[in-house]
């Protein structure tokens, strides 16, 4: 049985004006467990706190009830007081008789009556309180960034800048991501490579940053501050530390007919390749599916020409295990496949391309060295039709495409249209749009310039059918303002394909127990107030993996994610919230109900041995809560059919006792 002390605060006249504090302290004296009850003008004052400390010592109190203002105000204060008196701070309960009683009721009698009931509920609860100790865990002062696009690069640079070690894991042979494939960037039209590649070099030269390129994360264990991550370094058959990136092997490789993924298959590369001139790390990689030496042991030319002796055909995949305190997801996006949108004849004509392909076609380092030429016959296109919202903003019942707006297409299409008109004024450029969405600094001005200064023809309507015939693409479209059906003979059709999260995001989310929405974008801990944190503690989000984003937005989010990581890594120890769920293993039947509702992935299952009454041993699967991950919402306690799961500090019997006390 507890020995409870009740301390009723007057709060000057704030409480005493509507509540008869004397009557409250008298009434609560008779409650079970109460051995001491008093009232005072200002309980939170030094004198009031000393009164509590003295009473604890004098009456050997084991629990404290303070009837005062809201616990949101002074719970922390009175917990400290309890600790000063030698009690566990979690043996304190507050009855809120100010905000939720004296301030909202006018009548002394009803106010007093309610205050007594609230006090009784608090006494009933504190009688069932148990001392709680928050767990502590150390923090590994190193961060992992998954994805080496502009989001990952910026996050890593910012974290490294604060003095912490960062590893970047990138599945491609080089960092740089989608931004490295872009030509110019809106709305300023500076070239993507000119602003990105210096950052890539910074990453390479920063001694706090390690790059695991051509690698992927295969396993994540542990929790905030203490993640154990397995990284698979795919064999690139080139010794990274020896290769100088001279490119002699690339030149000599006889297998030159491999579709070049960096140029989206619009030209070819060799079997041993460096994706682009400014690649980081600048080392060669052998494509095992194309290399004759690896496929049938016939060739070996690259090894012969490599002066540094970096080629190693026997290289194997390597698994690296590393510890991290924080993980940043920066897995980015891809344009969706155009396979199901063949009304635009993407599969039927080479001259129907996606916007990303258009970027490569206009990029000086692209397949046409920056000249805008039709892929089919390398002739200059005179009429270009851009189609927006291809696969974006589709209703789910249309069974193809995405429901969301891909956000970046309006702006890059305006950019493409403007740049085309600028460089090739003899070209007719049509943009078919549903809405032009330009919310961003200098964005609408940019789009208007495309129309007003560059003469791009924006048509409110959609393309219904593209028919390749001869050298032309016959475009059938609607112009809703003119209320006409248009028929345009185009030379090139550019589709603004919707974007979707990278395919690696879903398995990664499973590994991280980070939640995703139905579109496979990572969800934030709070959509407004915690936009760069995942609900899983220690996992942060950067860039388009969280939702469609342009470069400025991605960079801002990358910086924000980095600052959150720095805040975490700056701590030596993490103090947990002791009010977490825990499961009574004897009652748990291992049904997984709690695991399914837990938003944090804090619950796992372990096989445990139990001694049975007949002295045999039985192994059962039972739930186990990781207190460092659990945030204490209590959802699992309600989902648990056997009542095994309970929440410390808000236990079933505690809340039940409050209900009983109120309903007497």
């Amino acid at each position, binding site marked *: 049985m507890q020995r409870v002390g009740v301390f009723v605060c007057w709060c000057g006249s704030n409480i005493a004006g509507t509540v008869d504090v004397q009557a409250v302290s008298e009434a609560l004296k008779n409650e079970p467990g109460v051995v001491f009850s008093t009232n005072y003008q200002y309980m939170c004052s030094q004198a009031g706190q000393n009164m509590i400390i003295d009473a604890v010592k004098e009456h050997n109190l084991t629990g404290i009830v303070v009837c005062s203002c*809201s616990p949101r105000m002074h719970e922390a204060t009175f917990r400290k007081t309890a600790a000063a008196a030698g009690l566990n701070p979690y043996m304190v309960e507050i009855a*809120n008789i100010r*905000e939720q*009683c004296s301030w909202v*009721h006018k009548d002394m009698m009803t106010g007093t009556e309610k205050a007594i009931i609230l006090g009784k509920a608090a006494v009933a609860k504190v009688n069932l309180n148990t001392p709680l100790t928050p767990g502590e865990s150390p923090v590994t002062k190193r961060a992992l960034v998954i994805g080496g696009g502009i989001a990952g690069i910026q996050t890593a640079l910012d974290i490294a800048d604060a003095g912490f070690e960062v590893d970047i894991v990138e599945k491609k042979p080089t960092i740089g991501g989608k931004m490295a494939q872009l030509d110019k960037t809106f709305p300023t039209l500076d070239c993507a490579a000119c602003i990105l590649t210096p950052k890539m070099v910074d990453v390479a030269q920063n001694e706090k940053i390690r790059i695991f390129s051509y690698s992927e994360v295969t396993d994540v264990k542990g929790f905030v501050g203490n993640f154990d991550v397995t990284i698979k370094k795919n064999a690139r058959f080139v010794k990274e530390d020896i290769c100088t990136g001279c490119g002699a092997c690339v030149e000599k490789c006889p297998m030159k007919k491999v579709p070049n993924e960096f140029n989206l298959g619009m030209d070819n590369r060799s079997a041993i390749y460096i994706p682009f001139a400014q690649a980081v790390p600048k080392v060669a990689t052998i494509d095992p599916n194309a290399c004759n030496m690896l496929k049938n042991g016939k060739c070996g030319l690259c090894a012969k020409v490599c002066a540094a002796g970096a080629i190693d055909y026997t290289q194997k995949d390597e698994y690296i295990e590393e510890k991290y305190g924080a993980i940043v997801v920066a897995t980015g996006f891809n344009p969706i496949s155009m396979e199901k949108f063949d009304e635009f004849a993407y599969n039927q004509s080479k001259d129907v391309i996606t916007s990303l392909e258009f970027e490569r076609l206009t990029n000086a380092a692209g397949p046409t060295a920056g000249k805008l030429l039709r892929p089919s016959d390398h002739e200059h296109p005179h009429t270009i039709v851009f189609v927006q919202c291809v696969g974006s903003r589709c209703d789910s019942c249309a069974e193809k495409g995405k429901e969301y707006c891909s956000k970046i297409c309006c702006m890059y299409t305006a950019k493409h249209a403007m740049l085309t008109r600028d460089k090739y004024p003899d070209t007719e450029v049509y943009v078919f749009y549903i809405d032009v969405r330009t919310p961003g600094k200098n964005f609408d001005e940019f789009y208007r310039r495309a129309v007003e200064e560059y003469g791009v023809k924006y048509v409110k309507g959609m393309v219904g059918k593209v028919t390749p015939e001869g050298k032309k693409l016959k475009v059938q479209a609607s112009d809703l303002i003119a209320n006409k059906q248009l028929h345009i003979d185009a030379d090139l059709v550019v589709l603004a394909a919707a974007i979707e999260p990278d395919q690696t995001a879903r398995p990664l989310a499973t590994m991280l127990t980070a939640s995703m929405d139905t579109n496979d974008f990572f969800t934030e801990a709070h959509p407004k107030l915690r936009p760069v944190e995942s609900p899983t503690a220690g996992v942060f989000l950067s860039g388009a993996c969280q939702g469609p984003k342009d470069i400025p937005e991605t960079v801002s989010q990358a910086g924000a994610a980095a600052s959150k990581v720095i805040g975490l890594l700056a701590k030596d120890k993490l103090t947990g919230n002791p009010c977490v769920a825990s499961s009574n293993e004897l009652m748990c039947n291992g049904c997984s109900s709690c695991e399914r509702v837990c938003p944090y992935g804090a619950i796992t299952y372990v096989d445990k041995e139990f001694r049975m009454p007949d002295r045999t041993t039985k192994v059962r699967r039972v739930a186990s809560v990781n207190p460092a991950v659990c945030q204490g919402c*209590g*959802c699992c306690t*309600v989902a648990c059919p056997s009542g095994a799961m309970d929440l410390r500090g808000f236990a079933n019997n505690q*809340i039940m006792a409050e209900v009983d006390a109120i309903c007497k």
Partner: protein
Amino acid sequence: MQVNEFKPLIVAFCCNWCSYAGADLAGNNRLNYPADVKIIRVPCSCRVNPMFILRAFQRGADGVILCGCHPGDCHYTSGNYYTRRRMAALFSMLDFLGIEKERTRVEWVSAAEGAKFAATMNDFVEKVTALGPNKRLEDLRCKR
């Protein structure tokens, strides 16, 4: 006269992050609502076990209201969605058992909605008062 004197007993479960703060705000702004409402603080509305509600009715409560963060704003991401689903099922079952739908309610009150909290409580108490005492589930053995 008898009817007028009936004072209902209302148990309100408020989540710590939104609705409990909303109730505090109602206090800060001195927005009155009947003293019949007694608030129990829970970390999240999804912490409220249907057992608590059944217990309240068994012990003579005349109405039970759950307040949580607005959908999409849950401090714990998804807790209030569970609340919504669980309570939809529970309340229709209670309705079947004779606990009128007006006696149970889930309401989303944010930390900034002191006025909404007070208005909600006024409305809820009024509706429950109109229904009169809950006799259906009350267990007389629990009466002292």
